[in-house]
């Protein structure tokens, strides 16, 4: 069952002093299934935060539609089931952490009797117990990020929308957030988060959508991504000679040479043996054979490095939107 459906959303902004349109979203489509962890990946300015704001009803799209729990964004019945962490968390500096969480809990409709227990629990979870009475204006960036996560999970939401949840955190903080998200996933919560930290995304996500220039360029299932990498092998050989290329064209994807060493990327696992045989036959020495797994980072960098999709709108754009669905 899909918890979140985003279909073809478009959004443009105009500058304060100019009439020129700046297209930010150009037909973003994706969905999140119940209990799934969906990563949202993209460079700065790709449209991640704008997409999240449209989902939350903070801005209206010029085209397309969004449904959360089969209702429109902004519907009070829906908003109570969402936990949101903004990209740059700014909280009321005059409040202490406990007061702030009390305010957020009250706004989310948490029963007054349940509130103190829940506040204590989330403060423990984000490891801010010694700071519960401290005013938020005295918090560091990392502490604010933790406080932000605490307010997002306080009312036990079914869907978490986290904009850069690892931003500003030290390695200990990152691990803590990762552990909390893993725990929430185990409890069947749906998590949609954007991040630049690809290793965290790879460790947590079931699926990832890559947004580029306001459009979903790729959507991948993380397990499939690892399988896609199987069979890509790099062979390192010494004593390489250019004429050896002749007999290996069909097996080798690319060759990189440094001095008398060569690094051969073999197209498929089954071609490793013939490549090694040909190297021996040619008098070369095999130094190493390494299995290369495809990572989210490889995929992301490849998508980012592609020629600008803006120049080829239309059919190509439609194809990209639905890739992986």
């Amino acid at each position, binding site marked *: 069952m899909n918890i979140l459906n985003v279909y073809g959303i478009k959004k443009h902004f105009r500058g304060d002093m100019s009439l020129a349109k700046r297209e930010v979203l150009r037909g973003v489509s994706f969905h999140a299934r119940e209990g799934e962890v969906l990563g949202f990946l993209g460079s700065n300015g790709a449209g991640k935060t704008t997409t999240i704001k449209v989902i939350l009803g*903070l801005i209206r799209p010029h085209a397309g539609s969004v449904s959360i729990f089969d209702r429109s964004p902004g519907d009070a019945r829906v908003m109570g089931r969402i936990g*949101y962490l903004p990209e740059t968390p700014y909280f*009321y500096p005059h409040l202490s952490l406990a007061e702030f969480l009390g305010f957020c809990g009250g706004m989310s409709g948490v029963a007054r009797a349940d509130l103190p227990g829940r506040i204590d629990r989330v403060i423990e979870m984000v490891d801010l117990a010694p700071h519960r009475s401290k005013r938020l204006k005295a918090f560091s960036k990392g502490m604010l990020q933790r406080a932000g996560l605490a307010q997002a999970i306080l009312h036990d939401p079914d869907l978490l929308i986290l904009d850069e949840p690892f931003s500003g955190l030290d390695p200990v903080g990152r691990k803590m957030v990762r552990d909390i998200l893993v725990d929430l996933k185990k409890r069947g919560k749906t998590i949609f988060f954007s991040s630049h930290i690809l290793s965290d995304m790879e460790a947590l996500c079931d699926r990832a959508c890559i947004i580029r220039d306001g459009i979903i360029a790729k959507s991948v299932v993380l397990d499939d991504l690892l399988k896609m990498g199987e069979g890509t092998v790099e062979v390192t050989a010494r004593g390489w000679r250019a004429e050896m290329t002749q007999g290996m064209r069909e097996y080798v994807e690319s060759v990189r040479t440094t001095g008398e060493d060569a690094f051969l990327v073999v197209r498929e696992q089954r071609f490793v043996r013939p490549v090694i045989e040909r190297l021996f036959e040619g008098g070369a020495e095999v130094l190493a054979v390494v299995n290369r797994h495809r990572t989210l980072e490889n995929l992301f960098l490849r998508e980012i490095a592609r020629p600008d999709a803006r120049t080829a709108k239309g059919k190509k754009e439609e194809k990209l939107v639905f890739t992986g669905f």
Partner: protein
Amino acid sequence: MNTIAGVALNTFRESMRERILAVAILFGLILMGSSVLLSPLAVGAKQKIIMDVGLAAISIIGVLTAVFLGSTLVHKETDKKAIYLVLTRPISRSSFLAGKLAGILLALALVFAVMTAVMLATIALGRGIIRPAVFASVYLSFLETTVVCSIVTLFSTFTTPMLTSFFALCIFAAGSLSGDLRVFASKFGGEGTRIVTDGLYYLLPNLKVFNLRHEAVHNLPFGAGDVLRATIYAAVYAAVALFFACAIFRRREFK
């Protein structure tokens, strides 16, 4: 209703920590203190001077505090993006705005209470008589401030704090004079001037209905019906201003 109360309480707390509030109370106290110093100049009218300056100070400080607190009402939330945390919860934008207005009115009620207490203490120490008209006058000043605050709320939904303050103060000045201008125009102005002043009279708040200072100072009779009419007028005017503020705020985008 709970969410409105939550926003109101948070706004009240925030207002309490704003220096402007302390400055407003201090300024009001100084003004009232100065009335004590001035009173020897008017022989036999010491209590009247204290009451006159005190009630005027309460009214002006109340309005100025409303303008300065209210002008940043929405702007501060959007500028710092704290509003994201509230509007992504099960609370309507109208409830949020109503809560903000209620919180500021709560803070203003405290400013009024402190200044009134000081004025009454000053009168009592001078062995003056505290008449019901004094309370009625303070109450009407608070209603006047409520109307101004609702206008500030309306402007704060679509413009900057600077322009909000400017427009609100202009409306306060025009609203205090609109009745006089209308009378003046009907006597000396042409047809066009009369239409303009009539339009302004009905559009702008008629703040004169909230002025009971003369009656309070000079111990003149005042009608309970006038106070009731002023209460209804303030409630309707503030509700209409809030209605338009909510309509604009619902359409706003938070980039």
